[in-house]
Structures are given as structure tokens and as C-alpha cells.
């Protein structure tokens, strides 16, 4: 497993880097409106009515943005949690921790692809 992790490391680093860069850029607007603005009543609920939200999310650009928004933070999260685990004495269990975390990120990314395709 350690060998496989080393072999796919460039791909993991690519997704991790994009998770920090694009994930941070995309999550800011999402959290401001979907996470906080509408629930707190700062933004009118009609802005995210089903018809409008579906129209925004179901075009090509909308699907790509939603895919990046869901999938990329998972890779940033997985890689940083692995790093945290190593720093807190988990070097000996790194292969297991990394496998579980990257499996969650990969499964989440696959579900994200399905989620945006079915919009």
C-alpha cells in the first residue's frame, strides 16, 4: 500500500493543491450565501428557490463549479488530516490512515460526479 501511495503521490498533491486554491476560492461565496446568508435571513430565500438554484447549477459552468466545490475540499482535508496524524505520532500507522482518508476523498469525488450529472 505504501508503494501505491508513493506512486499516486503526484496526483494526490495536484488534487490537494487545487483543494486549497480552488476550494478556498469557491467555498467563500458558497458559505457566505448558502451556509450563512439565506439561513440567517440576510439573503432572501427566493434567491435559492428550487427553480433558480437548479437553473444555476444544471448548466455546464454550474456543474463544474459544484463539482469543484464538493470534491476538491475533500482532498485538501484528507491530505492535511494525514499530515496532522503523522505529526501527532502516527507515522507507523500512516499507510492505514492515508488509505482510509484518500478512500473517503475518492468515494466523495465519485459521488460528486454522479451528483452533478443527475442535476
Amino acid at each position, binding site marked *: 500500500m505504501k508503494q501505491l501511495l508513493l506512486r499516486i503521490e503526484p496526483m494526490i498533491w495536484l488534487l490537494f493543491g487545487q*483543494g*486549497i*486554491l480552488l*476550494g*478556498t*476560492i*469557491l*467555498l*467563500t*461565496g*458558497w*458559505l*457566505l*450565501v*448558502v*451556509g*450563512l*446568508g*439565506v*439561513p*440567517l435571513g440576510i*439573503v*432572501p*430565500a*427566493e*434567491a*435559492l428557490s*428550487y427553480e*433558480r*438554484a*437548479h437553473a*444555476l*447549477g444544471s448548466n455546464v459552468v454550474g456543474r463544474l*463549479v*459544484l463539482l469543484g*466545490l*464538493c*470534491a*476538491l*475540499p*475533500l482532498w*485538501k*482535508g*484528507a*491530505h*492535511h*488530516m494525514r*499530515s*496532522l496524524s503523522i*505529526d*501527532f505520532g502516527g507515522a507507523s500507522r500512516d499507510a492505514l490512515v492515508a488509505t482510509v482518508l484518500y478512500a*473517503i*476523498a475518492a468515494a*466523495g469525488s465519485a*459521488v*460528486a460526479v454522479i*451528483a*452533478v450529472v*443527475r*442535476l
Partner: protein
Amino acid sequence: MARAAHPEAMKPRTPGRTRTAPPLMPDEFPTRGRYLPYVLFDATGLVYMLVGLAALRVVWDLGSGPEAWGVVQEQLRHPLYVAFHGISLVSVIFVGVRFFRLFPKAQPPKIGPIAPPPEPVITAMLYATWIGVAGVMTVILAGGIF
């Protein structure tokens, strides 16, 4: 005829006695000095993972129809969800500020024949992109345009 040398041709038969001390964590780790922001930066990984999964759930429900969308919108109003999204926003800003400070310093002196722009220019471009995309996305999602 010359041939490639075995990569471990010079390796001793038995491992030599190392004179390197075993690695120890610094006394300041994990909550003092520069280690606190370092650990917090890594710890935002948990927040990113959870917020990614939460966003995935919202998108999935959007694809499930108006009824599921109404349910998830109602659930997003729960104080725990609002608190979590507040913490997530703080985490995202923390990660952005720290990463955008690091990114220009991590650039190589040259990329092929081209030298990257000076650090302040890269930083300004990153912040302009972040503020610009977040601003446009906020305005679109909030119903300002489209």
C-alpha cells in the same frame, strides 16, 4: 560496453551505526510559537472535509427534486449548521490568507525560460482572483444577477 550501475552497488552489507540523534518533537509543539498556526492550518483539513461532504449533500438534494431541496434548506437553518458554516468560513479565510502568503515564496526562480512575476504581483493576483470570484459567486447566488 558501459551499462547502468546497480542503484545500490555502493550500499554497505550491514547498516552502519548512525550518529544522528532520534527525531524529537520541539518543546513548543503543538500549541506554542509558530507551531500553533501550523497545527491549525492542518486541522482545517477536518473542516474542509466536512464542508465538502455537506456541500455534496446539498447538491445531491438539489438533484433529487423540489421536496428534498426544501428539506435541506430547512435543515441549513438549524443553529448547529449555521455555527458549523460560520467556523468553516473562518477556516477558509485563515487557509486563504496563510496559503496566499506562502504561495509566492514557493515559486521557482524560473519556469523554463520565464521568470515568475515578483512576489507582490503574485500575491495581488491571488487576492484579486479570490475576492473577484467570491464576490461574483456571492452576487449570483444571492440573486443580484442572473
